[in-house]
């Protein structure tokens, strides 16, 4: 199985990154904090004010290692990458199929709904006994509703618009009970419904932050197999939007992101002091909070699971790459459908 190469996240304000031989060296106040050989790296993600030396930029670009610049809040600012290789024939196939995307969208949506449903079922199974009866039956009702949606999506011939509608309907139901899966009682850690730009509470801040990390991985995965990350199936194309990366991410969100957010909060690895609220109500992770999430994220990616379609054990962090590869195999005609990542 392909090696999972590392993404180096640099969160320390004022850190500087430079090239030393075949290594990336990170320094804080002239003291070496990390040294990573280039051949272990897939990408470097930098938050806020971090100095990246020009020789390092050149060395990384030449080796196909992407540098991504985010602001302190994790919002995308810029990306530096060497010549994009791509695969012209694959991309042509991608563009052609994106004109009639129904079957691929069916895979994305059914996996997303199935995985959302599994997240809810897992919580019911693990903590259902301790839940207030009313709460529990509300979650059960959503689990049933998701089953209905999944049946519709998977077993009947909906068109793309209907599939997108089903996805929205499922997300609405799922997030209407998502807050009940939080088991800590601090008022600061409650979920007030999904809010994105900006996140308005701590739970949304964690979710948004992990989605940024996952988007980055999905984008890299699309690029690694030669697909165009900007041309999607479920997500409509819009200039500047990595639609395909967002597509690939949909089925993995519940498994890789939502579950991680819940366990960080429920295990009290993240507490109210890990968040700060800005003027205007946006809630963000503090530096410490962000470090906690990044460590957990890296650990989660190293966990191994059986891949449902390939039948091989693979690290979770490789799943975006494997799914992108399977998608490209479908687009080039080797597979009769895009096999969804359905988590059990």
């Amino acid at each position, binding site marked *: 199985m392909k090696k999972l190469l590392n993404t180096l996240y640099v969160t320390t304000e004022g850190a500087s990154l430079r090239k030393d031989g075949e290594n990336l060296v990170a320094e804080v106040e002239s003291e070496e904090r990390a040294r990573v050989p280039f051949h272990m790296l897939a990408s470097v993600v930098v938050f806020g004010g971090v100095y990246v030396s020009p020789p390092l930029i050149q060395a990384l670009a030449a080796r196909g290692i992407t540098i991504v610049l985010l602001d302190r809040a994790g919002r995308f600012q810029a990306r530096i990458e060497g010549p994009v290789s791509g695969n012209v*024939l694959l991309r042509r196939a991608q563009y052609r199929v994106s004109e009639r995307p129904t079957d691929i969208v069916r895979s994305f949506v059914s996996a997303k709904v199935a995985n959302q449903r599994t997240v809810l079922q897992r919580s019911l199974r693990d903590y259902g006994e301790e839940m207030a009866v009313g709460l529990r039956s509300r979650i059960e009702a959503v689990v049933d509703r998701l089953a209905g949606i999944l*049946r519709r999506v*998977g077993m009947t011939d909906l068109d793309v618009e209907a599939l997108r509608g089903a996805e929205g309907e499922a997300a609405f139901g799922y997030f209407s009970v998502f807050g009940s899966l939080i088991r800590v009682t601090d008022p600061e850690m409650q979920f007030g419904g999904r809010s994105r730009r900006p996140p308005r509470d701590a739970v949304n801040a964690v979710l948004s932050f992990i989605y940024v990390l996952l988007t980055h991985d999905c984008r890299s995965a699309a690029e690694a197999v030669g697909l165009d990350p900007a041309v999607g199936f479920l997500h409509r194309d819009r200039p500047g939007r990595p639609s395909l990366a967002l597509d690939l991410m949909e089925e993995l969100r519940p498994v890789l992101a939502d579950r991680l957010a819940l366990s960080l909060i429920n295990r009290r690895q993240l507490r109210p002091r890990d968040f700060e609220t800005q003027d205007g109500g946006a809630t963000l992770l503090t530096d410490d909070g962000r470090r906690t999430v990044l460590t957990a994220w890296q650990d989660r990616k190293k966990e191994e699971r059986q891949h449902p379609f*390939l039948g091989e054990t693979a690290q979770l962090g490789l799943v975006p790459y494997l799914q992108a*590869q399977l998608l490209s195999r479908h687009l080039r005609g080797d597979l*009769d459908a895009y*096999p969804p990542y359905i988590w059990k």
Partner: protein
Amino acid sequence: MPAITAPELDEPIPLSALQHAVYCLRQAALIHIERMWEENRFTAEGRVLHDTVHEAADHRRGAVRRVSAMPLACRRLNLAGTADLVEFRDGPDGETAFPVEYKRGKAKLHRADEVQLCAQALCLEEMTGRAVPEGALFYATTRRRVGVPFDAELRRLTEQVACDFAALIAAGATPPASYRADRCNACSLIELCRPKLTRTSAAEFRRRAIAASLADAPGGELP
């Protein structure tokens, strides 16, 4: 001269692609058409070895003129590339070309190396207008030259492979994988190619996975 002519292409087929094409047409298509390339330790070693060979200069030793890194082309078969080394051996009626190709490792069971060498001979014949009856493969592990006579069968195989591959390029198509343990398990592209996948229907997998996911749900007969 044999009658086989390869389809017209915008660009010639690299000689080095032929060894992949003999081994497996899909492998050749993944590497040369789709540009997928898993750099692994073996290919890296191969590259280093070639770099060293290509640095050598032209020189003469007795009745042999040696030309390294010699550019070759064959219009009839649409081939182009570089020979590691061509020896031009003085004879009573002029020079006879004798291509030598350097290979990592040792002699293999399949004929990929011989085909690549024979293709060089076909280029040399077209370029010099003189017969090239034999050449040699030099294997790094054994440090031995293995003589290769360009007999009718090897020539036919080489021309066939060149034409098959040219047809693939013209069509821009990658042939489907078919898994063969002896070949695929030694293939550096196996994880990109995933030759066992084509045996499985992903649509069927999806149907079963959704059904399994719904197995606990009430009120549903599954189709």
